[in-house]
């Protein structure tokens, strides 16, 4: 479970140290309140804690200027690295809720129902966030690297 949480956190926060901080805080919080756990799926519960912690973190950061990591602009990256950079950059342009939905569904393989519970919204909202996120990322990827566009 911890490896999957780290993967989600890394994609969500886009910074390895911040991501591991989030995972650590999630685990500490979960352990501290394990006896208050209302039952249900532990996996969803951990994703919920992490998603909420990240939301709080971003809220507190909102007033500060954003720094873009220098590494993301490395021009010598090879093909797959460049592709990874593109997907990371496309993710960074999404609003928080949409990024979380996209990652929970596409990367972590959670069901719409689980994501709805995690975000505390109806399934319809999850689906519209997912649709908007996919459209946005698609446009972002195609706009930046037309050469890599896949045609089948």
């Amino acid at each position, binding site marked *: 479970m911890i490896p999957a949480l780290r993967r989600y956190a890394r994609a969500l926060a886009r910074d390895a140290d911040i991501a591991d901080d989030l995972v650590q805080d999630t685990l500490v919080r979960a352990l501290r*309140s394990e006896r208050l756990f209302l039952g249900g799926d532990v996996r969803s519960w951990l994703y919920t804690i992490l998603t909420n912690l990240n939301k709080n973190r971003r809220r507190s950061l909102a007033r500060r200027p954003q720094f873009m990591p220098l590494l993301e602009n490395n021009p010598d990256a090879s093909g797959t690295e460049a592709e990874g950079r593109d997907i990371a950059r496309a993710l960074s342009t999404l609003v928080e809720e949409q990024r979380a939905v996209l990652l929970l569904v*596409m990367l972590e393989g959670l069901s719409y129902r689980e994501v709805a519970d995690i975000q505390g919204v109806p399934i319809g909202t999850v689906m519209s966030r997912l649709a908007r996120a996919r459209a946005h990322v*698609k446009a972002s990827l195609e706009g930046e690297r037309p050469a890599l566009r896949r045609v089948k």
Partner: protein
Amino acid sequence: MTDPKIPVTEDELHAYVDNELPAERRGDVEAWLATHPEDAERVQSWRAMAEALHARYDSVANESVPRRLELDRLMQPPRKWVYGAIAASLLAFIAGGGTGWLVHGAAATPSTFQAFTADALDAHRLYVVEVRHPVEVPGSERTHLQQWLTKRCGWDVFAPELGSTGLKLVGGRLLPGPTGPASFLMYESASGERFTVYTAKASTETAQMRYTTQDRNGAKDGALFWADRGVGYVVSGTSDRDRLAQVARLVYDQTEKKGG
């Protein structure tokens, strides 16, 4: 299979890619995609997007987990906190009132707590009236009793020392519990007052002790329940709250110190 009768919506395309579409509609969507290249291209692009995400981030899941995220390291402070919570709830109970007593845990899992405690109280009532055969293994064989019950139950069954409350171990027995074996220990005072300590696997976790009483045939019994590390405990005996809490506290303190 030509064009499906009902047009495929965008939501359905997403659901199709995410395996959320009802099975009976999949064929319709596949037929639709065969005749609608723009939609087929979108579906393909979403799949490519998922592949790109996995290509970029799966390596994180394969990295070795940093030391600071190892559960052993994170466990220590929370355990103290949990100890504090259960102990504090007991103190509040002793202090009287009991207001807010059931607020946290009982609201969360009333059925588990009630069913579990009812089982323990049934066993308590069944055996406390026994004069000649209240237990299978007598308290004089304490070490053997603990080893036997631990082996059969699968968790560390420990018979606490309750001498400071005037109680002596009568002995114990193995019982069928809600989801497997349960251990049952009986204590007795010089005046014949009996208490029992029942433990079984409990899926519920609580941060508090919970109190209940039951009347049957004019006799009123009290029980305190708590759960710790997957094991539920019920101390049953008198409905006198202070006396019950005094015994439960000794049991709790000793099993807490004993357990890992």
